[in-house]
């Protein structure tokens, strides 16, 4: 990590010497534009590329910076350089204010988020145009003193933009490597699952938005003085939001350096054509290149050439990882202590009562089988306990904590992990990264390096180690189910909720899975599992709870419960009686 940052700063220092060459001002102005677009595209990418929240409102935050500098320098007489931190802060504040509303309003993504952010920039433009901030004629910064960072004004702007670009790239890189970036990539693929694995999705999105806006605001501040005449029409035109999207997509949105490469390519191309007599041809060429890239390199130039490096763990490492589960989780002796207690939990969807007052107790070290007809509320109960849904009524307590009002990521942190009936891996993350993420954000809460080692162990444990570098889509159903399991286990949960992990497996595979679940329990984790494979239910469960129409209709030892007439009629059918 430090090496990359070092290289980046060294490149910055080297580039800072360019003005000493005393090149014609033309080159410095051109490079200024390259750096300017690198800042804008890269900052856009921190939110939109990493987390997949595609914003068309980057112009609003850039414009906030433009007008902040224009107003403060001309009307308040503030020195130009001082206005830059103000630009960043104002833009970030504006972004957070919008994000605090938008990100709470459920899953506002895709075209809705794009349109909403676009609307925000139009609203802002209208406000600025019709208030003394601008009022119509535009603001001239001709009288504002340009700081003497270098002998000439073009050199000064060159250095300012260079510094901004280096800082932006360093931030983009640091975010990608940090837990924040990992969380954002998880949000990109499946926000619900990210939250359930312990990623504080709301906070992360706000943080990414704030960073993205602050950098765009600072770039706006610099650009205001560069153009020296700020108008609403130019500032809030569609050019900025559209260009940053084009550049990022062209370069590759899943890599911190992608947008910078796209920005450099597009700016250079446009400049080459503008300098000659073919400005129109330049635009057409950029459009054509973009079409080709989208068709043939949907991950962008960088995504195409920088293949995800498979981290083939050396044989030694894997041999080491072959440790059994005993070494990993502190062994807890099963006790009578209540771990989870749910009372009168109810939940309804659009008038359909999925849970109508369910009571469920799970003791430490216990395996509880949850069975019942389809639609009886089994999965809903798991969704409510894991925090995916909020219960309409009732109380849920877990290890001394009240879960009723907690968000899913907090519940995950407390030590509850779950699997999904139909596996929901993060599609763009490798098998190993999928599991690493759970170890970082779940109950284990490990730092990255430790989480990577932990993930290796669980991949070994679930026999997925040879597939560590593969993407989830390369796995078959059996392996995807075990990936779900590995992800849940890597969180080192106290309570494991398994939603039909055995369905779709052959009898031989089921035997293997049953042994695995027994082994997991032997180490002290409590398990609640939903299952229709009766053989497994009878073999695994200490206790069975039968749901029907959202109510518990029977509870007790497997043999006793399965013999009851009500259970046979509602669930098993006569063939099993």
């Amino acid at each position, binding site marked *: 990590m430090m090496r990359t940052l070092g290289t980046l700063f060294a490149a910055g220092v080297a580039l800072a010497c360019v003005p000493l060459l005393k090149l014609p001002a033309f080159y410095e102005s051109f490079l200024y534009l390259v750096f300017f677009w690198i800042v804008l595209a890269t900052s856009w990418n921190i939110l939109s590329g990493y987390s997949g929240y595609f914003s068309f409102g980057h112009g609003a935050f850039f414009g906030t910076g433009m007008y902040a500098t224009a107003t403060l320098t001309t009307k308040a007489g503030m020195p130009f350089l001082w206005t830059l931190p103000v630009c960043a802060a104002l833009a970030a504040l504006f972004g957070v204010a919008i994000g605090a509303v938008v990100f709470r309003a459920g899953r506002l993504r895709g075209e809705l988020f794009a349109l909403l952010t676009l609307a925000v920039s139009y609203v802002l433009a209208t406000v600025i145009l019709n208030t003394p901030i601008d009022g119509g004629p535009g603001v001239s910064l001709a009288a504002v003193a340009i700081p003497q960072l270098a002998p000439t004004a073009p050199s000064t702007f060159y250095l300012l933009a260079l510094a901004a670009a280096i800082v932006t790239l360093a931030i983009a890189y640091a975010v990608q490597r940090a837990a924040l970036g990992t969380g954002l990539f998880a949000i990109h693929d499946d926000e619900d699952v990210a939250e359930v694995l312990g990623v504080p999705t709301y906070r992360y999105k706000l943080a990414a938005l704030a960073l993205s806006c602050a950098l765009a605001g600072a770039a706006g501040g610099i650009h205001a003085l560069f153009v020296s005449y700020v108008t609403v029409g130019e500032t809030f035109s569609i050019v900025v939001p559209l260009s940053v999207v084009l550049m990022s997509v062209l370069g590759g949105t899943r890599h911190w350096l992608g947008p910078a490469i796209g920005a450099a390519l597009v700016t250079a191309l446009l400049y080459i054509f503008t300098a000659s007599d073919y400005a129109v041809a330049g635009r057409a060429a950029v459009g054509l290149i973009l079409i080709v890239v989208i068709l043939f390199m949907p991950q962008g130039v960088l995504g195409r050439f920088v293949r995800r490096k498979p981290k083939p763990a050396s044989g030694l490492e894997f041999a080491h990882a072959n440790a059994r589960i005993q070494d990993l989780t502190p062994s807890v002796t099963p006790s009578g202590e209540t771990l989870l207690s749910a009372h009168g939990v109810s939940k309804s969807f*659009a008038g359909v009562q999925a849970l109508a007052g369910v009571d469920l107790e799970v003791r430490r070290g216990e395996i509880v089988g949850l069975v019942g007809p389809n639609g009886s509320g089994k999965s809903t109960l798991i969704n409510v306990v894991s925090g995916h849904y909020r219960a309409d009524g009732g109380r849920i307590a877990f290890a001394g904590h009240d879960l009723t009002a907690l968000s899913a990521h907090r519940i995950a942190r407390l030590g509850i992990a779950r699997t999904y*009936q139909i596996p929901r891996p993060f599609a763009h993350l490798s098998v190993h990264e999928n599991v690493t993420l759970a170890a970082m954000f779940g109950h284990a809460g490990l730092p990255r390096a430790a989480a990577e080692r932990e993930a290796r162990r669980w991949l070994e444990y679930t026999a997925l180690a040879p597939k560590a570098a593969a993407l989830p889509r390369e796995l078959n*159903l059996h392996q995807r189910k075990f990936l779900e399991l590995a992800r849940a286990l890597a969180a080192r949960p106290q309570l494991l909720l398994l939603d*039909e992990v055995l369905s*779709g*497996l*052959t009898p*031989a595979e089921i035997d293997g899975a049953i042994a695995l679940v027994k082994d997991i329990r032997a180490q002290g984790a409590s398990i609640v599992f939903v299952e229709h494979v009766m053989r497994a239910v009878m073999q695994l469960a200490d206790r069975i709870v039968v749901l029907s129409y959202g109510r518990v209709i029977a509870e007790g030892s497997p043999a006793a419960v399965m013999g009851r007439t009500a259970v046979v009629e509602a669930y*098993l059918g006569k063939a099993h009686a």
Partner: protein
Amino acid sequence: MLELERIRVSYGAAPAIVDVSLAIGERELVCVVGPNGAGKTTLINTIAGLHRIDAGAMRLEGRDVSRLPAHRFCEQGVAIVPEGRRLFTGMTVRENLELGAYRRAARARRVQSLERVCALFPALAQCLHRPAGALSGGQQQMVAIGRALMAEPRLLLLDEPSLGLAPLIVTALFETIRTIAAGGVTMLLVEQNVALALEVASRAYVLEEGRIAAAGSPAELSRRPEIRRAYLGLTEEAR
């Protein structure tokens, strides 16, 4: 009715199905069993026209259909219940089912077909107006099966229809499969509940690592010790 001749299907460089020859006669119920990752789903998707065949030939009623696009298969009377349901989750259950009757031959009778599906899955009759995405997993599986039946298919492809269904419904489902078969629909069934599948099938294939490892009548196959061990396990004792 359907004939596969030494077909080969790959994902990129990795072959998923190699040299598979298979024939399904008119009104037959053929089942394919095998471990996960053997290529069963690929096989069924290929027959539905969702994968391109690299080598070999596929014939439907004597016509070469190796290069036919998927929607034309549907028009030919081939319907599929895909793995993982693949419902239109934003549409209501009724809309999902009615889309199943999209093929020209089935459109006219869709009211009767809907009644039949509702009789088969009474749980669906109560929630026709709800969005399919709001149903439980097992109920969604019922919609997927119902949607395929709405097409009044002549060849029905079932990819693990019992997945996620409660035992009571599984029993009912297999009774239904029998009924549909008796009604003259040709069927190809991929199923992990091997004991039940072999009970209803007239013929079975075992697929392992993309190749046909064994074929024969259910009685014959279930006598073989390696198949009893790997696929029947203890399923006879309790399913």
